[in-house]
Protein backbone atom coordinates (compact mmCIF):
# COMPACT_ATOMS: atom_id res chain seq x y z
CA UNK A 1 0.00 0.00 0.00
CA UNK A 2 2.80 2.35 1.01
CA UNK A 3 4.57 1.74 -2.31
CA UNK A 4 1.36 2.34 -4.25
CA UNK A 5 0.95 5.71 -2.59
CA UNK A 6 4.56 6.68 -3.25
CA UNK A 7 4.27 5.63 -6.90
CA UNK A 8 1.06 7.57 -7.36
CA UNK A 9 2.62 10.71 -5.94
CA UNK A 10 5.75 10.34 -8.00
CA UNK A 11 3.95 9.92 -11.30
CA UNK A 12 2.59 13.46 -11.07
CA UNK A 13 5.71 15.25 -12.37
CA UNK A 14 5.81 13.08 -15.50
CA UNK A 15 2.19 13.90 -16.29
CA UNK A 16 2.82 17.56 -15.54
CA UNK A 17 5.74 17.54 -18.00
CA UNK A 18 3.72 15.95 -20.79
CA UNK A 19 3.32 19.30 -22.56
CA UNK A 20 7.03 19.61 -22.99
CA UNK A 21 8.07 16.81 -25.31
CA UNK A 22 11.49 18.35 -25.89
CA UNK A 23 12.20 18.14 -22.17
CA UNK A 24 10.89 14.58 -22.02
CA UNK A 25 13.14 13.59 -24.92
CA UNK A 26 16.14 15.11 -23.17
CA UNK A 27 15.36 13.20 -19.99
CA UNK A 28 15.11 9.97 -21.94
CA UNK A 29 18.30 10.73 -23.85
CA UNK A 30 20.13 11.55 -20.62
CA UNK A 31 19.19 8.13 -19.30
CA UNK A 32 20.06 6.08 -22.38
CA UNK A 33 23.64 6.84 -23.48
CA UNK A 34 25.36 3.76 -24.96
CA UNK A 35 28.76 4.01 -23.36
CA UNK A 36 28.28 5.96 -20.13
CA UNK A 37 25.75 6.70 -17.43
CA UNK A 38 24.41 10.15 -16.74
CA UNK A 39 26.79 12.28 -14.73
CA UNK A 40 25.58 14.88 -12.25
CA UNK A 41 26.44 17.50 -14.89
CA UNK A 42 24.20 15.71 -17.41
CA UNK A 43 21.38 15.54 -14.91
CA UNK A 44 21.73 19.21 -14.03
CA UNK A 45 21.40 20.01 -17.72
CA UNK A 46 18.04 18.30 -18.06
CA UNK A 47 16.80 19.06 -14.53
CA UNK A 48 17.60 22.67 -13.65
CA UNK A 49 15.53 22.15 -10.47
CA UNK A 50 16.97 19.47 -8.17
CA UNK A 51 13.55 18.69 -6.72
CA UNK A 52 12.28 17.80 -10.20
CA UNK A 53 15.22 15.45 -10.68
CA UNK A 54 14.45 13.55 -7.47
CA UNK A 55 10.77 13.23 -8.31
CA UNK A 56 11.16 12.21 -11.96
CA UNK A 57 14.04 9.81 -11.33
CA UNK A 58 12.16 8.12 -8.47
CA UNK A 59 9.24 7.64 -10.80
CA UNK A 60 11.36 6.29 -13.67
CA UNK A 61 13.25 3.96 -11.31
CA UNK A 62 9.95 2.30 -10.40
CA UNK A 63 7.94 2.69 -13.57
CA UNK A 64 10.12 3.57 -16.61
CA UNK A 65 8.73 5.13 -19.76
CA UNK A 66 7.47 2.42 -22.12
CA UNK A 67 8.77 -0.20 -19.70
CA UNK A 68 12.34 0.44 -20.85
CA UNK A 69 14.52 -1.49 -18.41
CA UNK A 70 17.70 0.09 -19.76
CA UNK A 71 16.35 3.50 -18.84
CA UNK A 72 15.18 2.14 -15.48
CA UNK A 73 18.65 0.82 -14.60
CA UNK A 74 20.22 4.20 -15.29
CA UNK A 75 17.52 6.01 -13.33
CA UNK A 76 18.22 3.72 -10.37
CA UNK A 77 21.93 4.50 -10.61
CA UNK A 78 21.24 8.23 -10.91
CA UNK A 79 19.30 8.24 -7.63
CA UNK A 80 22.58 8.00 -5.71
CA UNK A 81 23.02 11.71 -6.48
CA UNK A 82 19.77 12.93 -4.97
CA UNK A 83 18.18 13.46 -1.56
CA UNK A 84 14.64 13.52 -0.19
CA UNK A 85 12.37 16.28 -1.44
CA UNK A 86 8.67 16.78 -0.78
CA UNK A 87 6.88 13.90 -2.49
CA UNK A 88 9.96 11.82 -3.30
CA UNK A 89 12.58 9.85 -1.39
CA UNK A 90 15.41 8.43 -3.53
CA UNK A 91 16.74 6.30 -0.64
CA UNK A 92 13.33 4.87 0.17
CA UNK A 93 12.71 4.16 -3.51
CA UNK A 94 15.96 2.18 -3.66
CA UNK A 95 15.14 0.33 -0.43
CA UNK A 96 11.69 -0.55 -1.81
CA UNK A 97 13.25 -1.81 -5.05
CA UNK A 98 15.66 -4.04 -3.12
CA UNK A 99 12.86 -5.39 -0.93
CA UNK A 100 10.50 -5.88 -3.86
CA UNK A 101 13.04 -7.81 -5.95
CA UNK A 102 14.83 -9.72 -3.17
CA UNK A 103 14.00 -13.16 -4.53
CA UNK A 104 14.88 -12.34 -8.14
CA UNK A 105 17.49 -14.63 -9.68
CA UNK A 106 17.05 -14.22 -13.43
CA UNK A 107 15.92 -11.80 -16.11
CA UNK A 108 15.29 -8.11 -15.76
CA UNK A 109 14.22 -8.49 -12.13
CA UNK A 110 17.74 -9.68 -11.27
CA UNK A 111 19.24 -6.72 -13.14
CA UNK A 112 16.99 -4.29 -11.27
CA UNK A 113 17.96 -5.91 -7.97
CA UNK A 114 21.70 -5.65 -8.69
CA UNK A 115 21.33 -2.01 -9.77
CA UNK A 116 19.28 -1.13 -6.68
CA UNK A 117 21.76 -2.88 -4.36
CA UNK A 118 24.70 -0.93 -5.78
CA UNK A 119 22.83 2.36 -5.72
CA UNK A 120 21.59 1.90 -2.17
CA UNK A 121 25.08 0.93 -1.03
CA UNK A 122 26.42 4.19 -2.43
CA UNK A 123 23.56 6.44 -1.35
CA UNK A 124 24.65 9.08 1.18
CA UNK A 125 21.35 8.98 3.12
CA UNK A 126 21.46 5.34 4.20
CA UNK A 127 19.50 4.37 7.31
CA UNK A 128 20.39 1.95 10.09
CA UNK A 129 18.65 -1.05 8.52
CA UNK A 130 20.06 -0.65 5.02
CA UNK A 131 23.21 -2.69 5.61
CA UNK A 132 21.07 -5.65 6.71
CA UNK A 133 18.88 -5.07 3.66
CA UNK A 134 21.99 -5.35 1.43
CA UNK A 135 23.39 -8.34 3.31
CA UNK A 136 20.19 -10.31 2.74
CA UNK A 137 21.19 -10.63 -0.92
CA UNK A 138 24.58 -12.16 -0.12
CA UNK A 139 22.91 -15.58 -0.21
CA UNK A 140 20.93 -15.04 -3.42
CA UNK A 141 21.29 -18.04 -5.78
CA UNK A 142 22.41 -15.70 -8.60
CA UNK A 143 26.15 -15.02 -8.46
CA UNK A 144 25.71 -11.60 -10.08
CA UNK A 145 23.36 -10.53 -7.29
CA UNK A 146 25.76 -11.83 -4.62
CA UNK A 147 28.61 -9.91 -6.25
CA UNK A 148 26.51 -6.73 -6.27
CA UNK A 149 25.60 -7.23 -2.61
CA UNK A 150 29.27 -7.65 -1.62
CA UNK A 151 30.30 -4.55 -3.53
CA UNK A 152 27.36 -2.60 -2.10
CA UNK A 153 28.40 -3.54 1.45
CA UNK A 154 31.94 -2.43 0.60
CA UNK A 155 30.61 0.92 -0.61
CA UNK A 156 28.23 1.27 2.35
CA UNK A 157 31.10 0.98 4.83
CA UNK A 158 28.82 -0.27 7.63
CA UNK A 159 30.61 -2.80 9.88
CA UNK A 160 27.41 -4.31 11.29
CA UNK A 161 27.34 -6.95 8.54
CA UNK A 162 30.88 -8.28 8.96
CA UNK A 163 29.45 -11.50 10.36
CA UNK A 164 27.24 -12.02 7.32
CA UNK A 165 30.18 -11.32 5.02
CA UNK A 166 32.42 -13.79 6.82
CA UNK A 167 29.74 -16.48 6.72
CA UNK A 168 29.20 -16.05 2.98
CA UNK A 169 32.93 -15.87 2.34
CA UNK A 170 33.24 -19.34 3.84
CA UNK A 171 30.60 -20.61 1.40
CA UNK A 172 32.09 -18.85 -1.61
CA UNK A 173 35.48 -20.41 -0.94
CA UNK A 174 33.91 -23.87 -0.91
CA UNK A 175 33.15 -26.16 -3.85
CA UNK A 176 29.86 -24.44 -4.69
CA UNK A 177 31.15 -20.93 -4.31
CA UNK A 178 32.33 -18.40 -6.89
CA UNK A 179 35.90 -17.19 -6.56
CA UNK A 180 35.13 -13.71 -7.76
CA UNK A 181 32.34 -13.22 -5.24
CA UNK A 182 34.78 -14.37 -2.54
CA UNK A 183 37.24 -11.75 -3.80
CA UNK A 184 34.56 -9.04 -3.60
CA UNK A 185 33.75 -10.09 -0.04
CA UNK A 186 37.48 -9.95 0.79
CA UNK A 187 37.57 -6.43 -0.56
CA UNK A 188 34.54 -5.44 1.51
CA UNK A 189 36.04 -6.94 4.66
CA UNK A 190 39.30 -5.09 4.07
CA UNK A 191 37.44 -1.84 3.69
CA UNK A 192 35.51 -2.55 6.87
CA UNK A 193 38.78 -3.22 8.71
CA UNK A 194 38.25 -6.89 9.37
CA UNK A 195 41.20 -8.23 7.38
Amino acid sequence: MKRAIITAVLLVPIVAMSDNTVQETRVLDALTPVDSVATITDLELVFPETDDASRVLCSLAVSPTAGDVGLQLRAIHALTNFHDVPGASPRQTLADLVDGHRTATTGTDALILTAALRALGSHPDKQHDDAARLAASLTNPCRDVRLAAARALRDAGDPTQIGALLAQQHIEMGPRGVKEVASAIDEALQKLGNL
Partner: protein
Amino acid sequence: MPSSKVDVPEEGVYQLTVGSFRVDGGPGTAIPRVMAVIKVGGGKALDLHFHFLDLGDHPCSDAMGGPLSAATAKLSTTFQTDFVGQLRTIFSNLTITTPTYENVAGHEPQMSPEPDALADLLALGAHASGVNIYFVRSISPSGVQAFGPNPGPAGLAGTAQSGIAIGVDTMCYRDWKTLARLTAHELARYMGLYHNTELGTPEHPSWHDPLGTADSANNLMYFSASGGPNLTDAQREILNRSPVLH
Protein backbone atom coordinates in the same frame (compact mmCIF):
# COMPACT_ATOMS: atom_id res chain seq x y z
CA MET B 1 43.10 9.99 -38.91
CA PRO B 2 42.00 12.28 -40.30
CA SER B 3 38.39 12.40 -39.15
CA SER B 4 37.44 14.67 -41.95
CA LYS B 5 36.68 13.83 -45.55
CA VAL B 6 38.29 16.99 -46.91
CA ASP B 7 41.91 16.14 -46.13
CA VAL B 8 43.11 13.00 -47.86
CA PRO B 9 46.60 12.17 -46.60
CA GLU B 10 49.40 11.51 -49.02
CA GLU B 11 52.88 10.21 -48.39
CA GLY B 12 55.16 12.86 -46.95
CA VAL B 13 56.05 14.76 -43.79
CA TYR B 14 53.28 16.39 -41.83
CA GLN B 15 53.38 18.94 -39.04
CA LEU B 16 50.39 18.65 -36.73
CA THR B 17 49.05 21.28 -34.38
CA VAL B 18 47.46 19.69 -31.33
CA GLY B 19 45.30 21.55 -28.86
CA SER B 20 42.72 21.12 -26.15
CA PHE B 21 39.46 22.90 -25.51
CA ARG B 22 37.37 23.80 -22.53
CA VAL B 23 33.80 22.76 -21.85
CA ASP B 24 32.59 26.09 -23.24
CA GLY B 25 34.44 25.46 -26.51
CA GLY B 26 37.24 27.93 -25.76
CA PRO B 27 40.93 26.96 -26.05
CA GLY B 28 42.32 24.96 -23.14
CA THR B 29 45.71 24.96 -21.46
CA ALA B 30 46.29 21.20 -21.30
CA ILE B 31 49.02 19.77 -23.51
CA PRO B 32 47.68 16.54 -25.02
CA ARG B 33 49.98 13.63 -25.79
CA VAL B 34 49.13 12.20 -29.17
CA MET B 35 50.05 9.12 -31.13
CA ALA B 36 49.03 9.60 -34.76
CA VAL B 37 48.33 6.49 -36.82
CA ILE B 38 47.72 7.49 -40.40
CA LYS B 39 46.75 5.06 -43.09
CA VAL B 40 47.47 6.14 -46.62
CA GLY B 41 44.78 4.80 -48.90
CA GLY B 42 41.62 2.95 -48.00
CA GLY B 43 40.90 -0.51 -46.73
CA LYS B 44 38.00 -2.85 -47.07
CA ALA B 45 38.39 -5.85 -44.76
CA LEU B 46 37.46 -5.65 -41.08
CA ASP B 47 38.68 -8.43 -38.80
CA LEU B 48 36.61 -8.99 -35.66
CA HIS B 49 37.92 -11.07 -32.76
CA PHE B 50 35.23 -12.21 -30.33
CA HIS B 51 36.37 -12.96 -26.78
CA PHE B 52 33.96 -14.47 -24.25
CA LEU B 53 34.38 -14.16 -20.51
CA ASP B 54 32.63 -16.64 -18.21
CA LEU B 55 28.96 -16.13 -19.05
CA GLY B 56 27.73 -19.31 -17.29
CA ASP B 57 24.56 -19.06 -15.18
CA HIS B 58 23.94 -15.58 -16.57
CA PRO B 59 20.60 -14.04 -15.51
CA CYS B 60 19.87 -13.35 -19.18
CA SER B 61 20.91 -16.78 -20.56
CA ASP B 62 17.36 -17.59 -21.67
CA ALA B 63 17.21 -14.45 -23.79
CA MET B 64 20.53 -15.42 -25.38
CA GLY B 65 19.25 -18.87 -26.30
CA GLY B 66 21.38 -20.56 -23.62
CA PRO B 67 24.84 -20.06 -22.17
CA LEU B 68 27.01 -17.97 -24.49
CA SER B 69 30.61 -18.98 -25.15
CA ALA B 70 33.04 -19.14 -28.03
CA ALA B 71 31.76 -22.57 -28.98
CA THR B 72 28.03 -21.81 -28.75
CA ALA B 73 28.26 -18.42 -30.47
CA LYS B 74 30.10 -19.93 -33.40
CA LEU B 75 27.34 -22.49 -33.89
CA SER B 76 24.33 -20.34 -32.95
CA THR B 77 22.21 -19.49 -35.97
CA THR B 78 20.66 -16.57 -34.08
CA PHE B 79 24.02 -15.12 -33.11
CA GLN B 80 25.33 -15.51 -36.64
CA THR B 81 22.23 -14.16 -38.35
CA ASP B 82 20.95 -11.48 -36.00
CA PHE B 83 24.21 -10.27 -34.46
CA VAL B 84 27.01 -10.85 -36.97
CA GLY B 85 24.58 -10.43 -39.85
CA GLN B 86 23.36 -7.10 -38.52
CA LEU B 87 26.95 -5.89 -38.10
CA ARG B 88 27.53 -6.75 -41.77
CA THR B 89 24.38 -4.84 -42.74
CA ILE B 90 25.37 -1.74 -40.79
CA PHE B 91 28.92 -1.79 -42.19
CA SER B 92 27.75 -2.67 -45.67
CA ASN B 93 30.60 -0.69 -47.21
CA LEU B 94 33.14 -2.99 -45.53
CA THR B 95 33.83 -6.70 -45.69
CA ILE B 96 33.69 -8.27 -42.25
CA THR B 97 35.92 -11.30 -42.48
CA THR B 98 35.09 -14.55 -40.68
CA PRO B 99 35.38 -13.62 -36.98
CA THR B 100 37.59 -15.50 -34.55
CA TYR B 101 36.08 -16.94 -31.33
CA GLU B 102 37.98 -17.42 -28.07
CA ASN B 103 37.09 -17.87 -24.41
CA VAL B 104 38.99 -15.75 -21.91
CA ALA B 105 40.28 -18.04 -19.21
CA GLY B 106 42.34 -17.36 -16.11
CA HIS B 107 41.61 -13.65 -15.98
CA GLU B 108 39.84 -11.71 -13.24
CA PRO B 109 37.45 -10.09 -13.17
CA GLN B 110 35.28 -12.46 -15.20
CA MET B 111 32.08 -10.93 -13.90
CA SER B 112 31.05 -7.28 -13.77
CA PRO B 113 34.25 -5.26 -14.32
CA GLU B 114 34.40 -1.86 -12.70
CA PRO B 115 35.92 0.93 -14.83
CA ASP B 116 39.51 0.42 -13.66
CA ALA B 117 39.37 -3.29 -14.40
CA LEU B 118 38.22 -2.74 -17.98
CA ALA B 119 41.64 -1.40 -18.92
CA ASP B 120 43.24 -4.65 -17.71
CA LEU B 121 40.72 -6.63 -19.71
CA LEU B 122 41.27 -4.72 -22.95
CA ALA B 123 45.02 -5.10 -22.50
CA LEU B 124 44.53 -8.83 -23.11
CA GLY B 125 43.78 -7.98 -26.73
CA ALA B 126 46.37 -10.03 -28.57
CA HIS B 127 45.17 -9.37 -32.10
CA ALA B 128 46.87 -6.34 -33.59
CA SER B 129 44.73 -6.41 -36.72
CA GLY B 130 41.05 -5.53 -36.60
CA VAL B 131 39.20 -5.08 -33.31
CA ASN B 132 39.06 -7.25 -30.18
CA ILE B 133 35.49 -7.49 -28.84
CA TYR B 134 34.96 -8.72 -25.27
CA PHE B 135 31.58 -10.07 -24.23
CA VAL B 136 31.25 -9.53 -20.47
CA ARG B 137 28.40 -10.37 -18.08
CA SER B 138 27.77 -6.69 -17.38
CA ILE B 139 29.67 -3.45 -17.08
CA SER B 140 29.61 -1.50 -13.85
CA PRO B 141 27.79 0.77 -13.11
CA SER B 142 24.46 -0.74 -14.12
CA GLY B 143 23.14 0.60 -17.38
CA VAL B 144 26.44 0.96 -19.24
CA GLN B 145 26.03 -1.24 -22.30
CA ALA B 146 29.39 -0.84 -24.01
CA PHE B 147 32.84 0.55 -23.38
CA GLY B 148 35.73 1.38 -25.63
CA PRO B 149 38.30 3.97 -26.64
CA ASN B 150 37.58 6.77 -29.10
CA PRO B 151 39.50 6.27 -31.30
CA GLY B 152 41.17 2.94 -30.59
CA PRO B 153 44.87 2.19 -31.09
CA ALA B 154 44.62 0.65 -34.53
CA GLY B 155 47.31 -1.92 -35.18
CA LEU B 156 48.44 -2.07 -31.54
CA ALA B 157 47.75 -5.13 -29.40
CA GLY B 158 48.13 -5.40 -25.64
CA THR B 159 47.36 -1.82 -24.65
CA ALA B 160 44.74 -0.71 -22.12
CA GLN B 161 42.66 0.42 -25.09
CA SER B 162 43.12 -2.55 -27.43
CA GLY B 163 39.47 -3.49 -27.77
CA ILE B 164 35.90 -2.82 -26.80
CA ALA B 165 33.67 -4.45 -24.15
CA ILE B 166 30.01 -5.34 -24.60
CA GLY B 167 27.75 -6.14 -21.63
CA VAL B 168 25.45 -9.04 -22.49
CA ASP B 169 23.07 -8.16 -19.65
CA THR B 170 21.53 -5.89 -22.27
CA MET B 171 20.05 -9.06 -23.75
CA CYS B 172 17.62 -9.22 -20.83
CA TYR B 173 15.70 -6.34 -22.38
CA ARG B 174 16.98 -6.00 -25.96
CA ASP B 175 17.53 -8.39 -28.87
CA TRP B 176 20.63 -9.44 -30.81
CA LYS B 177 20.03 -6.87 -33.55
CA THR B 178 19.91 -4.07 -31.02
CA LEU B 179 23.06 -5.38 -29.35
CA ALA B 180 24.65 -5.38 -32.80
CA ARG B 181 23.78 -1.68 -33.18
CA LEU B 182 25.41 -0.91 -29.81
CA THR B 183 28.46 -2.95 -30.81
CA ALA B 184 28.65 -1.22 -34.21
CA HIS B 185 28.44 2.16 -32.45
CA GLU B 186 31.43 1.25 -30.30
CA LEU B 187 33.33 -0.25 -33.24
CA ALA B 188 32.82 2.94 -35.23
CA ARG B 189 34.16 5.00 -32.32
CA TYR B 190 37.18 2.70 -32.22
CA MET B 191 37.63 3.24 -35.96
CA GLY B 192 37.59 7.02 -35.75
CA LEU B 193 34.01 8.28 -35.78
CA TYR B 194 32.67 10.46 -32.97
CA HIS B 195 29.26 10.92 -31.43
CA ASN B 196 27.35 13.00 -33.96
CA THR B 197 25.70 14.86 -31.10
CA GLU B 198 25.86 14.90 -27.31
CA LEU B 199 23.32 15.53 -24.60
CA GLY B 200 24.83 18.98 -24.05
CA THR B 201 24.88 19.99 -27.72
CA PRO B 202 21.93 22.43 -27.37
CA GLU B 203 23.93 24.34 -24.75
CA HIS B 204 27.28 23.79 -26.48
CA PRO B 205 26.72 23.91 -30.25
CA SER B 206 30.33 22.96 -30.99
CA TRP B 207 29.72 19.53 -29.42
CA HIS B 208 28.77 17.74 -32.60
CA ASP B 209 30.38 15.95 -35.50
CA PRO B 210 29.39 17.68 -38.74
CA LEU B 211 29.88 14.40 -40.63
CA GLY B 212 26.80 12.88 -39.04
CA THR B 213 24.26 15.60 -38.58
CA ALA B 214 21.83 14.46 -41.27
CA ASP B 215 18.90 12.65 -39.66
CA SER B 216 20.82 12.92 -36.43
CA ALA B 217 18.77 10.71 -34.11
CA ASN B 218 18.74 7.79 -36.56
CA ASN B 219 22.49 7.89 -36.99
CA LEU B 220 24.71 5.10 -35.70
CA MET B 221 26.79 7.64 -33.82
CA TYR B 222 23.87 9.15 -31.91
CA PHE B 223 25.05 9.02 -28.32
CA SER B 224 21.90 7.39 -27.02
CA ALA B 225 20.79 3.77 -27.24
CA SER B 226 17.66 5.11 -28.94
CA GLY B 227 19.69 6.00 -32.05
CA GLY B 228 19.44 4.22 -35.38
CA PRO B 229 21.89 2.27 -37.56
CA ASN B 230 22.42 4.81 -40.34
CA LEU B 231 25.73 6.23 -41.51
CA THR B 232 26.22 9.19 -43.82
CA ASP B 233 28.41 8.89 -46.89
CA ALA B 234 31.00 11.10 -45.18
CA GLN B 235 31.08 8.81 -42.13
CA ARG B 236 31.45 5.74 -44.34
CA GLU B 237 34.36 7.42 -46.10
CA ILE B 238 36.13 7.95 -42.76
CA LEU B 239 35.48 4.34 -41.78
CA ASN B 240 36.96 3.20 -45.11
CA ARG B 241 40.16 5.04 -44.21
CA SER B 242 40.48 3.53 -40.73
CA PRO B 243 43.89 1.96 -40.04
CA VAL B 244 41.93 -0.90 -38.47
CA LEU B 245 41.12 -2.16 -41.96
CA HIS B 246 43.36 -4.07 -44.29
